[in-house]
């Protein structure tokens, strides 16, 4: 089995490779529970976190994963850097590469920025969210959480709720879930469903109650408040009334339904506040698993393109 050098998205990533990442992540979860939750594996490797967009959870999660693996890391944020002086992405990275770095974790508002990077440098590139395209490590941690809570992903009915059109989380989740054999649905206002949705071979709901009755899992996406200004929804209040997930609505759901949210939450808009803290919610498990999944990805990509020992193939 060949492991690719970069993680740019989940589109086209094989079931075997996703399974390998999830298994490896389970091992790292055990590392995180140790008295000293740190291993020397990536000692001497240098990783740059290039964040052209604000992020708390993802950036901390990657940073923590790097520290737990004993890698050295450099953190770059667009504000207060040479980008503010007009440097292009290509030049920034060429300069970083001249400093001998091994991996780049990039978040960028432009879709495809990580792919551009991967074409221009030798280091491994990990996509931490690019525009409206993909956010693969988020989908992987969602998959890991599902696997933990429901044992297997195959056959699970997962509904993604909200702004599908602008969501990289949704896109990566759809690719990952379908590869792993889950049934996928999307539900949201028609203005927030992407045009290509009908080609994806997934369920489409425009009424939230239908999605709730159908689903084993609801993955509730964040409503970007600027969507109202662009006229895609009449008002945030109306969105909350028609698509917000509430306890009252969940009365029609199966008893053991799981509620996920990639964060940051708008409590009281896409999700009722106390529901986010309820026993159905696995939102904090997602965050914990995020560190383990990112350790797995960094570990597996750290050697560049790799051939994995044959023992795995027998088990996979």
């Amino acid at each position, binding site marked *: 089995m060949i*492991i690719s050098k970069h993680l740019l998205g989940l589109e086209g990533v094989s079931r075997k490779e996703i399974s390998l990442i999830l298994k490896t992540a*389970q*091992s790292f979860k*055990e*590392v995180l529970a140790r008295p000293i939750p740190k*291993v*020397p594996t990536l000692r001497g490797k240098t990783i740059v976190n290039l964040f052209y967009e604000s992020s708390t959870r993802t950036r901390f999660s990657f940073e923590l994963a790097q520290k737990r693996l004993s890698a050295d890391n450099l953190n770059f944020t667009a504000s207060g850097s040479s980008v503010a002086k007009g440097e292009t992405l290509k030049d920034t990275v060429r300069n970083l590469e001249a400093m001998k770095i091994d991996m780049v974790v990039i978040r960028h508002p432009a879709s495809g920025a990580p792919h551009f990077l991967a074409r221009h440098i030798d280091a491994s590139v990990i996509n931490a969210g690019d525009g409206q395209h993909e956010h693969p490590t988020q989908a992987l941690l969602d998959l890991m959480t599902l696997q933990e809570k429901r044992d297997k992903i195959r056959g699970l009915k997962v509904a993604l709720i909200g702004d599908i059109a602008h969501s990289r989380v949704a896109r990566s989740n759809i690719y990952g879930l379908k590869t792993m054999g889950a049934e996928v649905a999307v539900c949201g206002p028609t203005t927030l469903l992407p045009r290509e949705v009908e080609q994806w071979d997934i369920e489409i709901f425009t009424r939230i109650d239908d999605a709730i009755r159908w689903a084993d899992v609801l993955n509730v996406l964040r409503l970007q408040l600027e969507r109202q200004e662009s006229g895609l929804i009449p008002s945030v209040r109306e969105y909350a009334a028609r698509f917000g997930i509430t306890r009252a609505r969940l009365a029609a759901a199966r008893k053991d339904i799981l509620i996920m949210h990639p964060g940051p939450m708008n409590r009281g808009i896409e999700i009722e506040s106390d529901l986010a803290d309820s026993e159905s919610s696995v939102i904090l498990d997602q965050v914990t698993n995020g560190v383990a999944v990112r350790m797995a990805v960094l570990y*597996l990509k750290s050697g560049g393109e*790799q051939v994995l020992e044959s*023992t795995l193939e027998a088990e996979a």
Partner: protein
Amino acid sequence: MKTRENIKTEIMDGKDLDRTVARLAHEIVERNRGTENLVMVGIRTRGVPLAERLIDKISEIENRKPALGILDITLYRDDLLKKMKQPRLQQTDIPFDIDDKVVILVDDVLFTGRTVRAAMDALMDFGRPAKIQLAVLVDRDQRELPINADFSGIKVTVGAGEEIRVKLHGVDDCDGVFVVDSANEG
């Protein structure tokens, strides 16, 4: 990988192996004057079934079963990022506190000593054991680090191009210790 290798000599058959494990178990309880404070940690892959067998023998002798821990040393290897073939990371499971315990570290073959070095580093991250002792089935030559076994089943010198292969039920289809050609080893 298991079927491709070319067996040159059999050093131990299943019965020999069983007797050797019994002797090692006796030596371990003799040296430690019983099993109090004793825990066993098997190094993946074949250190684990070997540790299980030692535990069975020890409990026959002393009527008390030492706890078993499983250690995967992949993350502590010194050649991890140099090898083209990346070993698969598996789970470590040490379900007890090792502080102030006597840890018997178990592996099938002691060769360069690098695995044991990695295992000791890993154990230190779990706590501060009173002692670590090393038990191996085969002690072969060509050490690269100053590490020796406290309990060893058999000492073997191996020629160029040869490898020691231990087989244990639970992982393999038979029990035994063999000398094989190392040519097809990756």
